[in-house]
């Protein structure tokens, strides 16, 4: 019986020791959790403050940018408008030029074709001329040779008659 009581007591003590340890651990954990909570809270606070700051800064930047970009935007619009105007004017000028140039182009094409054909004709004429000149030169040379022969012939015939 005694031994049983001792075991029971031992178990009881162990139980209480374990319980105590557990309580201690639990308390420590709770404390840590609390610490963490506090840290989280602080962090959350920092974060919300950071966000706030960041948002403020972003807004500030956005405003600054807007301030700076807006005039540019206005200028750009004006420029775009001017470009459009210019483009329109350019188109109208081009159309006007086309309208005026079209007949000229046709006549220019005709003239060019005419020039080309004239050039070709001239080239052919020149070639023909060269051939003709060559032929004429040959004829003249042959004629010169013929004249020389005739002169020789007349001279020799004259001698024959003298003899």
């Amino acid at each position: 019986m005694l031994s049983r009581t001792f075991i029971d007591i031992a178990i009881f003590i162990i139980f209480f020791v374990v319980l105590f340890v557990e309580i201690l651990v639990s308390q420590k954990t709770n404390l840590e959790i609390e610490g963490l909570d506090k840290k989280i809270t602080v962090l959350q606070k920092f974060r919300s403050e950071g966000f706030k700051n960041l948002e403020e800064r972003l807004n500030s930047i956005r405003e600054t940018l807007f301030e700076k970009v807006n005039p540019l935007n206005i200028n750009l619009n004006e420029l775009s408008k001017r470009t459009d105007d210019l483009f329109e004017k350019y188109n109208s000028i081009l159309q006007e030029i086309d309208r005026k140039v079209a007949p000229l182009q046709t006549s220019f094409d005709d003239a060019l074709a005419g020039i080309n054909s004239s050039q070709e004709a001239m080239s052919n004429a020149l070639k023909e001329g060269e051939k003709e000149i060559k032929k004429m030169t040959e004829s003249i040379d042959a004629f010169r040779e013929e004249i020389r022969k005739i002169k020789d012939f007349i001279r020799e015939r004259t001698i024959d008659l003298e003899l």
Partner: protein
Amino acid sequence: MEEIIATILFADLIDSPELTRELTVQEYNEMLTDFQNTLFEVVTHHLDFYGYEGYGIDYEWTVEGDELRIILYSGQVHFDIRNALLLAIKIKIAWLVSPFNQRVMKDGYQASRIGVGIDCGKVIKDLKPWRMKIGETRPKIEGYAINRTKHIESASREGRVSQIMVGEGLYSICQLNNRINISFGQPQNLLFKGLDQKMQIYEVVSFINFEILPSMPSSFQEGLLEKMERIAGNGAPEPWVLIILLRSYISMLASGEDETLVAKALDLAQQALKVLDYKVVIYNMLGWLYSNCKSAHTLKLAGR
């Protein structure tokens, strides 16, 4: 059938009977080949050179054995006569300077000579039915003038200057005017075999024409003058060679005086005067030399 006035020329080797005796058949054949080649070259070149249109159109010619026959009928008889005379002299020159004769003379023998007969007369150009039956398509020239010229040619060996004999037809045309610078010897009345009457023929003793040597075929031109000079200086040359050579000297002197040539011409003229009966042509040439070459006087004074 067409009646035309033609100039007919016959030529053959004067000494062919002697040649047939002295040469072997092969040697005679070689000579004949040389002879025919020479004639072919001279005749074809000449007819082309002087503008004859073509065989059967205004001329025809054949060579058979040692006999050449040319018939010219361009329609201009003076032109045909002049060409026949030119051809006669040219074939004589070409044969004289031919390889065969050069060999003969080198061996110390007398050169083989060509006799020529020329005459003019009416002939008929016709294609007889029997000729058509044997496949001939070209008209033939026939007529008594051809036979007569053949007889005239057979008398050429009697000639003493050129051995070119002409008939009455050609002689009378040449006497009508002086268009052809030709002189004839005394007429000879000869009776030919087969003819019942005598025929008058004349020898050409002078035919002055500057075209003879320059219009020779190019294959004969090289060294032609030198060969003729050798022939002229070799023993007793035929008299016509001296006249041709002297005339060619005058042509050269007309282009420019050369004292050496004048001296050669004067020597040749002296040589010709010794052998020629008809001296007028030589006196004329001497007259030309003295009139146109100053050095001729100097040479005369020096006793040449």
